[in-house]
């Protein structure tokens, strides 16, 4: 009996201690990113420019959705999430995760995130109310859900009357091809390509832009990393903006980016063409009073999640 009690007490003590062991001094920086989501700074990633600029090795890990990035950041496995969708970030902040938004990775129209209706269903923008009562695939809790909501408002269909099925983009595309759903909302170049092979975009890129449907991807960081290594964070954002400027000047090495994004050069160019990379000054405006600010307020985000002090102005 004594043995059992001492074992239980020992376990409790060990568990309590295990969580409080802190690891600090950053010997490497761990960054999360997406595949099939080309960005100019991937050239710097491949050429190890980040490692040089930050002075410590940078470890890049690819994720399939922004929610998983948050999970990894909370577990202490990721320091910076680059191009996390705004919706997963907002969900995380709403559940009081200690994360901060420090930069805008890019703004994009419906080129990168879109809803595709199958040709077989015959549903287009004109008769979109026919979607009611039918099955649609949406990756809930991502930017695609936001795009879905906004698109439905534009075309005048009632979301609550539809049969919304939670599906990740790859599966959504497969279900659209198989005819199980009449519409799939997706992101990622390859998934959209598979979907548009049997369907058409509900709203064209231009129509979506006119309706003000805008995707924003951000750079988020854990509070701990921000407090501990403000210099590194600043450098990271600076290098990213330098890469964006290089891309704007047409000097980026597209082949390297395409290879790193695991896309074909043509597809990659089409995807990246739909992105708008902001300059530091534009970013600050957007974060303080522009698109991003409006987005955050519209989604009821608690204040204090945005920090503009790391922008290289």
């Amino acid at each position, binding site marked *: 009996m004594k043995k059992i009690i001492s074992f239980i007490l020992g376990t409790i003590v060990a568990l309590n201690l295990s*969580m409080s062991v802190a690891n600090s001094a950053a010997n490497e920086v761990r960054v999360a990113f997406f595949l099939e989501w080309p960005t100019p700074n991937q050239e710097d990633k491949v050429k190890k420019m980040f490692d040089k600029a930050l002075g410590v090795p940078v470890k890049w890990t690819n994720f399939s959705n922004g*929610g998983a990035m948050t999970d990894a950041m909370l577990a202490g496995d990721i320091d910076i999430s680059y191009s996390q969708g705004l919706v997963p970030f907002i969900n995380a902040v709403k559940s*009081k995760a200690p994360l901060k938004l420090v930069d805008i990775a890019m703004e994009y129209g419906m080129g990168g995130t879109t809803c595709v209706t199958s040709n077989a269903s015959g549903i287009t923008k004109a008769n979109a109310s026919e979607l009611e009562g039918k099955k649609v695939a949406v990756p809930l809790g991502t930017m695609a859900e936001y795009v879905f909501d906004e698109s439905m408002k534009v075309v005048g269909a009632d979301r609550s009357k539809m*049969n919304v099925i939670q599906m990740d983009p790859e599966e959504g595309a497969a279900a659209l091809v198989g005819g199980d759903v009449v519409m799939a909302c997706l992101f990622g170049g390859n998934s959209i390509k598979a979907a548009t092979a049997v369907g058409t975009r509900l709203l064209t890129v231009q129509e979506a832009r006119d309706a003000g449907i805008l995707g924003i991807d951000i750079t988020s960081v854990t509070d701990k990393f921000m407090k501990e290594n403000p210099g590194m964070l600043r450098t990271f954002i600076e290098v990213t903006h330098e890469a964006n400027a290089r891309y704007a000047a047409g000097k980026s090495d597209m082949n390297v980016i395409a290879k790193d994004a695991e896309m074909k050069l043509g597809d990659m160019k089409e995807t990246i063409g739909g992105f708008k990379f902001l300059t530091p000054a534009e970013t600050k405006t957007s974060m303080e009073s522009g698109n991003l600010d409006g987005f955050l307020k519209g989604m009821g985000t608690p204040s204090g999640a945005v920090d503009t002090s790391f922008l290289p102005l």
Partner: protein
Amino acid sequence: MFTQIITFLIFFAIIGCILYGRKLIKNEKVDAVFGNPERAKGGTHWIIVGSSFILLVWLYYSWDIAKAFYPKSANELCQVGKVNDSLLSLKYLFPIEERQFKSTFVIKSENKNINKLAKEIKNSPDIRNQDKDKLLDFIEKTKKTIPLLTNEKLIENNTIVKIKELTNKITWLTEDFQKIGYPPIKSIEEENKRIEAIKKQGGWGASGTAVENTVEIPTIPETKKGLKFDAAAKELKIISDEFFKLRNHNPEYKKAIKNLKDDIKKYRSGLDDTHEIASALAKDVLKIARRIEYASIFPPKTLNEMQKSIIEFDNVQKKEQGNLRLVDIFLFPAGTIVSSGPNCSEQGSGRWLPKPSDTFDKFVLLLKPSVGFKNIPLIWYEMMDVSKIIGFIIPDWIADIVPGQYPVHSSDGTVKPNFKSKVLKVATGEFKLFKIPIPMGHIWDSFLRVFLGLVIGIILGVPLGLFMGLNRFAKGFFDPLIELYRPVPPLAWAPLIISVLGIDNVGKVFLLFMVSFSIMIISARAGASGTQLSKIHASHSLGASRWQILRYVIFPNSLPEILTGVRVAIGMCWGTLVAAEFLAGTTGIGFVENVAKKYFQYEVIWITIFVMGMLGLLFDVTLRKIIDKTIPWRGKG
């Protein structure tokens, strides 16, 4: 209140049952030797200890006990968290929670980087020698900027005074902080405003009024102690911000770095496109120089006083926490409450392990059919017309083979139904009879999928298994097929399911069928081939036919094996179901969990886990009862 009572009850239950158990061991006279199953019979008191223990661990690690006994502690710890948050950046500079000064670390690593870059430049085959010399010169100059920052003689008087000022501020704060009157009372209006805000901010814990996440920890200080820490945190924040604006940029350093920057800029603009590599390397040198510029590097002894004052304040604030510190250590295991920006949150086990009381509230909320999850109740009933069932049973093609044509609309715009169309109406169930209530909702859907998968698996698997155990042809023919597919984990089929069978129930039930089918075959086959030969011989000599042997000897003998197989299959089916519902779906427990995960609704995630556990248990208990009733000969053959 409720949680408090429960906690005490659990303590008494555990202690009481352990004492009872020990007493029983002493008094009981058992003649069963070791190894006799009789010795494992009974023991309800140990069940109570086991389940109480689980509940206690849950209450403890979800910090529900802290919430029940010290409901204000979260709010106070939030204020302490604010102090820690303000101190954090400063603390990181000193070897307080680290092994070395931050500046030491920066200098060490930048020296390493400088050497690495120098080596790279020296060994690079693509740059001209004159560029190499130039670049190495830049590196040398960068290296020389470090001593300019760490030299005690060079540091400006201004900077020293400023550091002294900040140090004094911390020391004063430390002194004030220990006084009873701290913080000084503000105007009555502000005080009233605060009291008003406190009333609005609500209590600790997720509220039971919405499925979505709501405020977890009230941030406005509610107690005297909280006010104290809150005020100190605000002062510390100002001090910290001021310190980080401070740079040890003396005139000599400024001159050196400006020269270096200008030189590099001039050098780079002088290069044409053919010397891109040299240009990039020059930029790398500049980056190191700028990193050194940005870091807070001071001469070695300059910050000693400041470090001392911070450590002192840290000690004082720990002392001032008083018994709150004990509460933090003992009742907030594996984590604590952390402040970040304007919010406070639970970090550690309290974050992902929701409190039993909150979980219960949310479960009650979800059970309400009007709330449910994503507009579908967890379990409820709906009225369905019996005609739908008839329509489902009668195949639609029956109408097609009825002679005649389907009606065509007439010129006056009406459609006249004929016999053929009436048959179609019956076959498709589009008529009205009477309505009966049938269950619906997430739990029911999941239950039905498991049940269907299991039943189909049993119906097909058991006869095939028996057949394979008794017949050489069947064994030889089916064996390779079964053995090939059996070891494949059912989830390996999952990616194919959507493409082949679609996203409806068919795919999910099929996956579950795949699970139960192989298990049923194996157990039925083992049961059939395990029948004692003497029994078969006995029935033969009594003149039993083949059917009778199968029915009265082999089947009853293999029943124990088959029912054990069913129990195993149920467990496996539940495991597979969740993953199958993760794939695609609009209903089911797995779907609820998957979506809740995306919105970080930890309470809902745990509710789904418990529901699944309970349903699994329910299945198993039912089956155990069936086994005990139907095969009393089990283990006695």
